[in-house]
Every structure is written in C-alpha cells, then in structure tokens.
C-alpha cells in the first residue's frame, strides 16, 4: 500500500439500518479505523457474520463480506481461513448469534487457535427480533418472551472464551471509540484466535445496560496493572473481581484480559503438509494408480 487508506475508505455506500444511538455504529467506526491503522488492503479482508442487528456490520463495510446464517459465522470463517490463510478473516457477531444458537462453534475454533478475530457486539438482548433476552442478559431483564423479568443467570463471555482456550481475550466499550480501535487493532494483529467482547448498548430495547449505565463505570484493567500474559489472573478478574454480570455495582472491566502465544492452526496445518510432501508431491494419476491390485 503506497497511500494509507482512511477509515472512510473501508465503508461501503450502504447506510446502516441501525436505530439512532445504537452502539453498533461506534463499532464499525472503530473497526474501520483499526483497518486503516493496520494498513490492510480491503480486498484481503473478509468480514463474516451471522444474523442479527450486529451481524449486518459486514454489509456496511468495503471488504469481502459474508453474511451467513444465524449463529454460523464462525464455521464459514474457519473454512475461508483454511482455504486461504493469507486473508485477514473477521467475525462480526452478536451475543445471541455467538453465545446462543452458535455457541457450539466457539470452543473448537478457539482451542484450535484458528487465526481469526471475533468481535461480539454484546447488547445483552436480541435486537433484530425485537426484545428477547439473550444468554448475556442479566436476571430480571424484561423481554417479550419473559414479561415477568428474566429468571436466567447470564453467561460470562470473557470467562467462557478464556476457558475455551482463546489466545486473545479482551473487552471494550462502544462508548469509548479510542479504546475500541486500539483493542481491535491488537486483536487483528494477534496471531491466533482473538475474541473481543464489545459492550454495545441497544437503546431501543435494553433499557438497563445503556450508555448512561456504563458512563464512569468502566475500568481499564491494563491501566490498573493487569498483565495480559497472566492467564490465572485473567480468570480471576473475569470470574470474581470485576464480574459486573453478577454484581451490578462492580466496575465494568475493559482491556486485554489475556494474550498468549501459541502456534496457530494454519501453521500446524502447514507443518503436516510439509511432512506429507517431503518426498515429493504425487500426481493425481499416481493417486488413482495406487488402487491397482499390486503384484509383488
């Protein structure tokens, strides 16, 4: 790249269909800023998403976009990455998409350290289907199917992804554009599976986890001295000290919980390939001829 592209150059000409004040606007603004900072050519970026308000994000950006099925962004992204490891592959998803219907895919992409970046726009609600509780909704939240106030304890995305073996786990907040862009940049730069949970309020349906609620509540754990290499401490932070999912009065942690170095899946894949082809690459005809009944 001779001339660095500006963030706006990564935006498509489609106007987002999001409600005014939706947190997701900030997410794509920060994401395009990160692309620009990293100098990524748009043609080498593939943004993959599921279904949800959040999952529309790829369509608003200028890169290769794959808007898949509800909950299925990760498998499609894995297929893309393995087919062409040179591409920068992102998953742009929502709390429902990723932690409800698509939750079965997370552990496997994470533990195998597939080199993709997963950005979950966590509004603790189902936005697109108009106000149902999601796996990250706090107890007591009113959804259209839980008019009595949710009785479900929420899932902790940070702790979950740490346990699954994600080699990069961070949280950021849609009300903090600078922090978001910084975290996205780090996540994309990270070699291996990276997960970023973005607290991205849905002002239309979630009247509890709002920008107002988060204001002055977020605490940058790295500024507070947390070392991202410390996995044990990361777990502790996620589970206890700063778990605002269980303690609404606790500060809301943002920053990099964990960043570990581990060989990526495609690196390991390449090593296996080298082993298999060390003594030469057979022709396709030879692979067929291997089925002849051999006389010794």
């Amino acid at each position, binding site marked *: 790249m001779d001339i660095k592209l500006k963030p706006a150059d990564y935006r498509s000409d489609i106007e987002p269909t999001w409600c005014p004040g939706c947190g997701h606007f900030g997410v794509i603004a920060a994401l395009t800023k990160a692309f620009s900072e990293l100098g990524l050519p748009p043609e080498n970026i593939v943004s993959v998403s599921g279904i949800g308000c959040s999952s529309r994000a790829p369509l608003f950006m200028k890169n290769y*976009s794959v*808007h898949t099925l509800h909950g299925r962004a990760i498998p499609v992204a894995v297929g893309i990455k393995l087919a062409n490891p040179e591409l920068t592959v992102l998953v742009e998803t929502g709390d429902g998409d990723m932690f409800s219907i698509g939750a079965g895919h997370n552990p496997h992409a994470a533990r195998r350290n597939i080199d993709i970046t997963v950005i979950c726009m966590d509004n603790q609600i189902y936005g697109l289907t108009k106000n149902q509780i999601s796996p990250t909704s706090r107890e007591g939240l009113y959804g259209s199917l839980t008019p009595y106030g949710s009785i479900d304890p929420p899932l902790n995305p940070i702790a979950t992804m740490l346990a699954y073996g994600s080699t990069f786990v961070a949280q950021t907040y849609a009300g903090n554009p600078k922090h978001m862009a910084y975290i996205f940049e780090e996540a994309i730069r990270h070699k291996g599976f990276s997960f970023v949970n973005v607290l991205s309020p849905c002002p239309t349906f979630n009247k509890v986890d709002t920008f107002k609620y988060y204001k002055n509540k977020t605490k940058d754990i790295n500024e507070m001295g947390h070392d991202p290499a410390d996995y044990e401490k990361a777990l502790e932070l996620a589970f206890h000290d700063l778990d605002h999912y269980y303690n609404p009065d606790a500060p809301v942690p943002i920053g990099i919980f964990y960043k570990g170095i581990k060989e990526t899946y495609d690196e390991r894949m390449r090593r296996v390939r080298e082993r298999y082809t060390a003594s030469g690459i057979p022709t396709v005809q030879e*692979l067929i001829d291997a*089925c002849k*009944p051999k006389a010794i």
Partner: protein
Amino acid sequence: MARFDLTIKIGGEGGEGVISAGDFLTEAAARSGYEVVNFKSFPAEIKGGYAQSTVRISDEKLYSTGDAFDILCCFNGEAYFFNKKHLREGTVLVYDSSDFEPEEHKGVILYPVPLSELAKDVMKAYITKNVIALGVLCGLFDIPSQSIRDSIKARFVRKGEEVISLNYKALELGINYVRENLKKADPYKFPSPRQPKDVVIMEGNQAVAKGAIVAGCKFYAAYPITPATTVGNYIVEDLIKVGGWLYQAEDEIASLGMAIGASFAGVKSMTATSGPGLSLMTEFLSYAGMTETPVVIVDVQRTGPATGMPTKHEQGDLFHAVYGGHGEIPRAVLAPINVEESFYLTVEAFNLAEKYQIPVILLTDASLSLRAEAFPTPKIENIRIENRWIYRKEEDPEGRFKKAGRFLRFALFTEDGITPVGIPGDPEAIHAITGLEHQENSDPRNRPDIRTWQMEKRMNKLEKLLREDAERFYEFDMPYSKADVGVITWGLTGSVTKEAIERLRSKGIKINALYMKLLWPIRKDLIEGFVNSCERIAIPETNWSGQLAKILKAEVGIDAVSFCIYRGEPMIPKEVEDFIDYLINNPEMSAGRLTPSDIYGEKSYGII
C-alpha cells in the same frame, strides 16, 4: 451370457478377518484378469456381530453380487444360521467344524475344516483363522495362492516380516489340510488366469474420495457418521499431498458452513454425510443455493428415519435431496448405480457445482459404500474438469460487471443467469454474499421486482443445465419400440435391475430400461420419450414411499407401479425379476405400489 460365474460368500464374526479374506479373493480375481464385485457388510457393533463378504467373479461385466452364492464359507455357526436357507442342491459349504455341525441339507457338498482349532493349536495364533480358510479355499477351488501371498504382503508390509511369514504359514496349513484330509466333490474351480486388465479396485466411498481428488477438491469438512466416514478416511492423506486439507468439524452444520466458506475463498470443497447429517445441513443447503456458492454434498444414505439402522442400506433420502430445505433453490442431485460411477459422478458433481454455481448432492448408500469393484483404471487426461467463472478485469473491458464502483456479483443481464464470482484477494471484485434477497451488487432488497428477477436468475440456471448437461446422465436401454414393461431405476437398485433385466429378456419378456443418474432437475421430454416406448412403467426402490415414482408423477405426470422394499438390505436381482413377472401376470395393474407381501405373501420382507 457369462461362461464363468462364481460367487463365494464368507461369513463370520466381525473382527475375524472375514472382510480381508473377501478383499484378498477380490484381488486374486482382478489379478487373474476377471470381472469382480465384492459386497461387504459389517455388524453395527464395534466388536463381534455378523460380518460377511460376498465375492462374485465372472468373465463378463458384473452388475451385482447376484441372488445368493455357490460356495459358502462359514467361520462360525452364526454365519451358517443366517445363510442356511440359501443352501441348495449343488452348493458348497466350507465350515469351521470346531465350532458347529450343520443340519442335513440334501445335495449340499460339505467340507468340514476345524478352522479355529488349527488356528489355536497348530498356528498358536487365532487371528490367522481367516488366512487358513483362504488356504482351504485355494486348495479346494484352485484359487492362485501366489495372489493371496501378494495380498498378504501388501496388507502386512508395515507390520514386518514376522507377521507376513506367519500368514504365509497359515495359508500353507490350509492348503495342506485340504490335500491331506478332503476329497474334492464339487465342480467349482477358479478359472485359469487370463491376460490381466488395467484395473483399479475401489470401494464405493473410496471411489468418491478419488473422484473428488481428480475433480480438484482441496477442502473437505468432515463430521464422522456411518456410513460416510470412510469417504474422509480415504481422502485425508491424498488431500494433504495435493495441498488441500480435511478439517474435522464440530458438527454437520459447521461442516457445510466450512465447505461454503472455503468455496467462497475460491477453493473447490465438499463434505460427506448420511441422513441425520443432511438434515442438519439443510439450512446451509438453502444458503448455498441463495448465494450461488458451488459446493458438493455427498449423502451416503443409510436406513432412516432418525438414527434408523446406521450400517444398513436404503434409498430414503431422495425427497430430502430433491425438495429439502426452506424456500426454493437451484440444485442438482446425482446418484451412481455402481462403484465405477461413484468415481465419475463425483467428478461430475464438482463440474455441475462449478459451472452452475449451485450445491450438488451426490446420493450413494451404505451398501454401495462398501461394495468393491474392479474397473478400468481412470485416465486423468480423458476426464473433463469444469471450473467456475472467475471475474477478471481484463476480460471485462467495458466494465459490464461494475456499477458505481461496485462489483455486480449477482448481475441480471447474462442470458443463462450465470455470473462471474469474485475471489477474496482481488481488489476488482470486492463484494458481499448474503442469504437475504439481494440486488445485483449484493445489497439486501425486499422489492418485488428485484426478488422476481433474482429468483429467475437463480432458478433458470437449471434450464441451461437441462439443455447442456442432463442427457448424459440418462442411460437408456431400449431395444424394443413397444416394451411390455419399462423399468426406471436409480442408485444401487439400478445395478441389481440390470441383471434382472438380462434374465427377463432371456425369458422372452420385452423390457426397456432407464437408469437415471441425474435425479434433479428432470428432463421431462426424455422421461416422456421413454414412457411412450413402454406399455407400463415399473420402478423398484428400496424405500417406503416409492420416492422416484412420486417425483416423476409430480414433475412429469406419469403413472408407474412402485415396488418398495424397506428392510435395510438392497434388493437382489431375483426380487426385481419377480416384481416384473408379477406385473406381467397382472396386466391390469399400471399404477400403485407393491411390497414384498403382495408378491410373496403376508409378512414377507422379500427372499434374501
């Protein structure tokens, strides 16, 4: 008619080497220059249970493993129990006399051999039982023991010289046992070797794997499921060697999603599964059609519904393959009738997927997956490979596929609906794909005009397929201008039917046949042409509903008599023969459905 036609069936407990004994006989036949088909079945249990391998050898092209056997070799009493009703006058029974003694069977030639005792007491290795039995078969029927030795060596080369020489010894033991203890009392003899042909021996699932490699498949997403797993087993190392990869997914939803992702990235990709997996894949099937993403899905059908009988045969997923999924998508469904076609139709599945940018489903089944055949070695240079139309700026000087700087992945102006794909990495073809209805530049749209035109773009691709690529998948065998009966078949039942038809014709029955390898889309005119050449139409299928008959009724409007067997085992030629005979004897019947009970009496499941 064949001058030489011999069927040897080996039965015993799973894990006792029944299957490898059959494989070795198959190789012996191929090395001796003969046609050979081998049908194996495994027990559903991991260990134990009844396993069998039936090897049929002939000097002429074989379509099936026939109705029964000439020689039965029983490794235990259970194998005898399952097969004794097929012991006729003149058949041979070789059996493990240390395990059981058979009942009285008139005219059956018996060769008792204490297989287990010999293995345990003489060889001191029970695992050599199957090779001792092979030695016995060599001694009795002149099977070339050198070929068995070659097979032993090829099979055990990695296990070392000791294992090889142990097995050579076991083979000798069997041969000598015959010389010293048995007197030949039957007429069966392996034919003397003739000029060997240039053949390969493959199992059905192996043929699918090799076909995919030839087609240029570079990504395979797998989730284990019987009987499809072995497609992956067979392809994994070949794929790595040619620079591809097999990824074991977390479930079948993911496997099709991954295959679609890899295809979007520009790589030919596939997945293989069985009925339950196809059900899970159905949402993505719809998505592949909507986004015009080429992908191949192999469904090795097994007995359904639900978990059904996982190791058993059925042709029960045709409706699902043809009509399954929400909304309407363009798709093609192919089904091979034998192993050789499993190879070539896999290549064709990729070709159709690439050319038309559609999902293609290849339907095989549990029995075909385990059938081995010797067939002429495919020559790569004679196989046509199709690749998708990839956008290149230099080929589009007027910028027809660009508008306001956007790439028109779903342009509406090509006559046949096919439009070039853009591959990530190309700055000129940046675009999105989405399962939402979309306009030419991929943007989601709900407008009735755009919806109508995009539906037509997608669905009309099949019109071109019907024009250019359908006919070669219809195999007509129509010697009569007006046949008494016309048989339409698909899948494994097709190869069984071929044999039945030879027999029926030799009895003087005028019978035409159509073997459909492309089950969707359907060439109405070709079906009608065939139907007009016959008084009545008969469709044998191994499913409950008569699914092909129903599809042809719906799509072409023809009446047919279905013959439906749904016991989990394939039809045998004799049953197809009896079905047609039944129709000849009931001239008033020209539509409807028959089951074994109609032909053989109440509660019948057929005559296997």
